[in-house]
């Protein structure tokens, strides 16, 4: 090939994965065969088919053809959007995804599955519309291709004669006849005869970007008509195409050049890319290890704006230096301007840095989006009625974190659907609505991304877990863990409480792997459950590289950052509100609540707390339902900070949620309020 196709193939694959995701989403939303939705799905399939054909993935293109035909019938109203049809299409989406994965990784998709789904689609087509006229408009020139032939024209003619006369602007749309001929060549022996009679005689009439050529191609071999049509799929509206069987093995037309490279050179630089579905922001690719990412256009616009500001500031500074040169008497005023300018420069630079960092942050919707499908499938399989609610899909997490979040979440949601939610009859008997609720919610809290998976199912039976754990030797006979501790045992290896091992979950591996994965991301997972009411799994993940609104504090010599959302209020103590318990544990009475006062300098340096001054400055902060009052020496400004982990080059430091770099280049630690509360209570109980 004359140019490196690999990059275009990557783009094709990425867009195809996005297309599949969109197809999936739309299929799930396809209530009553809404024509607009169907159109969207059809376009996705069409793009994939065309792209696959262009890049030589014949099998994918062929498979998608069937899907596309079925979709076409549906949008023409010839086929109902019945649940089994939708399910078949969803299955086809999976098969296609597997095939595309195989194409990307150089493997092969399970041929049995591909063949089966293909057969099912064909069977579906067979029993729906007997007359299969409703295909994509046949190309001019007597395309009599029928869907029945997609199975293959075995025993058909020994070859085909193809007359291909592109319209003048074929190459302007990025199509390249040479590429098509190359694909045809793979199907058999190809003889090409180029017809030049449409070339204008006069140079004035000649536009080099027009295609003035036509070709007669003779393809010898076992290729089917469908295979040939696939090759011309993208151009069927832009050419006259006539495909007819060769009556006999013909003698190659004398003098015909084997391949004409000349015309291809013109179009070669703009290979056709499939029309990307207009997915913005939300839907991303699912390929976990993809090295490219989608970025919200808004973030890029913000970057451009900031660079613009930077340029303005720079020209302002240049202007000041020129004025100083011209008129040194204005020194004072100019220096003032210079200071302002430099301040602005600093701010712009910092903002620029922050926005660059924020590019790595992606909405968690990219993971959440796969769950409607998952829940739809599983609940259908199990005969359960489940409503899935997604909340906080636009919570941003670091790309790396998100990529590793998918599998654990799939497992947890499956568990909730499989083990959590009961069968409709069971629910009705328990006086609950027949439709079970599963909620997936993400939000930021205290330097963490928290993801909750809640269900209103039957909950966990603590006694049974305990019995199992004792059997497995995880809990000794003399140990009596409390309910909360028992529930956490499900994360231990080898403890599955499923009554029966089902196809979906409960294979004995699972929760321990989930916990390990989440630990690997520096997070943790906890389970709360109430029998009969449901369960709640809480995953906490660090916000590596993420951006947060922070309040800057001065404690002693050091500047710290506390997440703004953790702050309840900042106040100056009233002497009568400070109580000393046991003489050394200061509590602050805030309205009706007693809050421990934490001397951070003492807590961090492990020294004795210094006596509380009469009017101390306190920042009351809350995390995990615990409140602490931090003694601070000064409240500085508020700003957005980029959270950096200390683990990259060191390790996690208790009491901190990472560090950030301040405007002056100094490192400031970010306080982890929950951790501080834990540390403080640990010390206090010991001290008492």
């Amino acid at each position, binding site marked *: 090939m004359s140019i490196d196709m690999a990059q275009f193939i990557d783009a094709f694959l990425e867009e195809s994965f996005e297309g599949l995701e969109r197809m999936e989403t739309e299929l799930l939303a396809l209530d009553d065969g809404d024509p607009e939705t169907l159109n969207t799905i059809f376009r996705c399939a069409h793009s994939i088919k065309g792209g696959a054909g262009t890049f030589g993935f014949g099998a994918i293109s062929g498979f998608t053809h069937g899907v596309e035909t079925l979709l076409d019938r549906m949008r023409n109203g010839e086929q109902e959007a019945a649940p089994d049809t939708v399910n078949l299409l969803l299955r086809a989406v999976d098969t296609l995804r597997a095939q595309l994965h195989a194409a990307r990784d150089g493997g092969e998709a399970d041929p049995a599955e591909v063949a089966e789904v293909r057969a099912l689609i064909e069977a579906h087509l067979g029993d729906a519309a007997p007359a299969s006229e409703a295909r994509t408009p046949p190309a001019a020139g007597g395309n009599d291709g029928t869907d029945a032939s997609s199975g293959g024209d075995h025993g058909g003619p020994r070859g085909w004669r193809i007359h291909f006369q592109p319209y003048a602007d074929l190459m302007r749309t990025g199509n390249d006849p040479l590429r098509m001929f190359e694909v045809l060549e793979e199907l058999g022996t190809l003889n090409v005869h180029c017809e030049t009679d449409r070339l204008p005689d006069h140079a004035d009439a000649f536009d080099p970007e027009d295609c003035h050529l036509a070709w007669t191609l003779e393809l010898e071999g076992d290729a089917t008509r469908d295979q040939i049509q696939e090759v011309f799929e993208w151009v069927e509206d832009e050419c006259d195409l006539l495909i007819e069987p060769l009556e006999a093995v013909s003698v190659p037309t004398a003098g015909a050049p084997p391949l004409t490279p000349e015309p291809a050179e013109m179009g070669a630089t703009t290979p056709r890319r499939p029309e990307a579905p207009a997915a913005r922001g939300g839907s991303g690719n699912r390929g976990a290890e993809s090295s490219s990412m989608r970025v919200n256009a808004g973030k890029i616009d913000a970057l451009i704006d900031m660079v613009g500001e930077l340029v303005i500031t720079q020209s302002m500074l240049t202007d000041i230096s020129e004025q100083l040169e011209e008129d040194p008497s204005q020194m004072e005023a100019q220096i003032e301007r210079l200071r302002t300018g430099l301040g602005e420069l600093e701010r712009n630079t910092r903002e620029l840095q922050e926005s660059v960092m924020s590019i790595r942050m992606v909405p968690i919707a990219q993971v959440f989006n796969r769950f409607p499908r998952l829940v739809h499938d599983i609940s259908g399989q199990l005969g359960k009625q489940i409503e899935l609610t997604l909340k906080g899909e636009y919570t941003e997490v670091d790309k790396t974190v998100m990529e590793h979040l998918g599998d654990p979440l799939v497992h947890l949601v499956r568990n909730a659907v499989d083990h959590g939610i009961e069968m409709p009859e069971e629910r009705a008997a328990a006086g609950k609505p027949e439709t079970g609720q599963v909620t997936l919610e993400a939000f930021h809290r205290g330097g963490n991304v928290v993801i909750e998976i809640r269900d209103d199912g039957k909950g966990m039976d603590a006694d049974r877990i305990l019995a199992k754990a004792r059997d497995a030797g995880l809990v000794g006979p003399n140990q009596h863990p409390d309910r909360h501790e028992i529930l956490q045992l499900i994360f231990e290896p080898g403890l599955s409480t499923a009554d029966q091992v089902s196809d979906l979950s409960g294979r004995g591996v699972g929760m321990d792997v989930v916990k390990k994965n989440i630990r690997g991301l520096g997070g943790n997972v906890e389970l709360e459950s109430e029998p009969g009411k449901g369960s709640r799994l809480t995953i906490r993940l660090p916000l590596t590289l993420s951006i947060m609104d922070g309040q800057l504090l001065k404690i002693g010599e050091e500047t710290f950052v506390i997440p703004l959302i953790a702050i309840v209020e900042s106040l100056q103590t009233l002497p009568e509100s400070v109580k000393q318990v046991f003489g050394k544990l200061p509590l602050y009475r805030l309205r009706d609540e007693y809050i421990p006062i934490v001397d951070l300098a003492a807590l961090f340096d492990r020294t004795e707390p210094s006596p509380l001054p009469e009017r101390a400055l306190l920042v009351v902060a809350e995390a995990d339902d615990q409140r602490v009052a931090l003694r601070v020496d000064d409240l500085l400004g508020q700003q957005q900070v980029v959270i950096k982990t200390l683990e*990259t080059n060191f390790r996690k430091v208790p009491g901190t949620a990472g560090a950030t770099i301040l405007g002056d280049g100094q490192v400031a630690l970010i306080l982890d309020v929950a951790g501080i509360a834990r540390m403080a209570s640990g010390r206090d109980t010991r001290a008492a």
Partner: protein
Amino acid sequence: MANDATQSIHDPATAGEDQYLTFILAEEEYGVDILRVQEIKGWERPTPLPNTPDYIRGVINVRGMIVPIIDMRLRFGMEPLEYGPTTVVIMLRVVGEERERVMGVVVDAVSEVYNIGSDNLQPAPDFGTRIGVNFVRGLATVEEQMILVLDIDTLLGPGLIASADAIEAEATA
């Protein structure tokens, strides 16, 4: 000093020899594999980390990366030295099991770059002190000077993290 180092770098190590950057700590010379040296910086006050051993001075910002700073004198249980204009921080790449870390070590001064053949590296005697012998790759004699070649992956790797963990465990127990 740093200039000496850059000059010597132009003499490539011959086969069987490795290049070592040496630094001074209390008059003695110590060597580290030069391929692990990322850069040499002047001393700047780091941001202290809570509940860490005294030899972990804190963290600094190196072009947007948060890097811990370890005082080698304190690490080896020596008398601390007032940080002055010649105090330098050597940024080292420490290769661990999971990942590579960058750490800065505070030393009195940077000295030389030497080529040392592996057969000139003698095994270290048992020190039996706070410097575990596994931190020492060997002893070499160059120009009548003894150089203690350090294994920074052990010195700044799991051992250091573990000792820090022990202190933290004590703090939060």
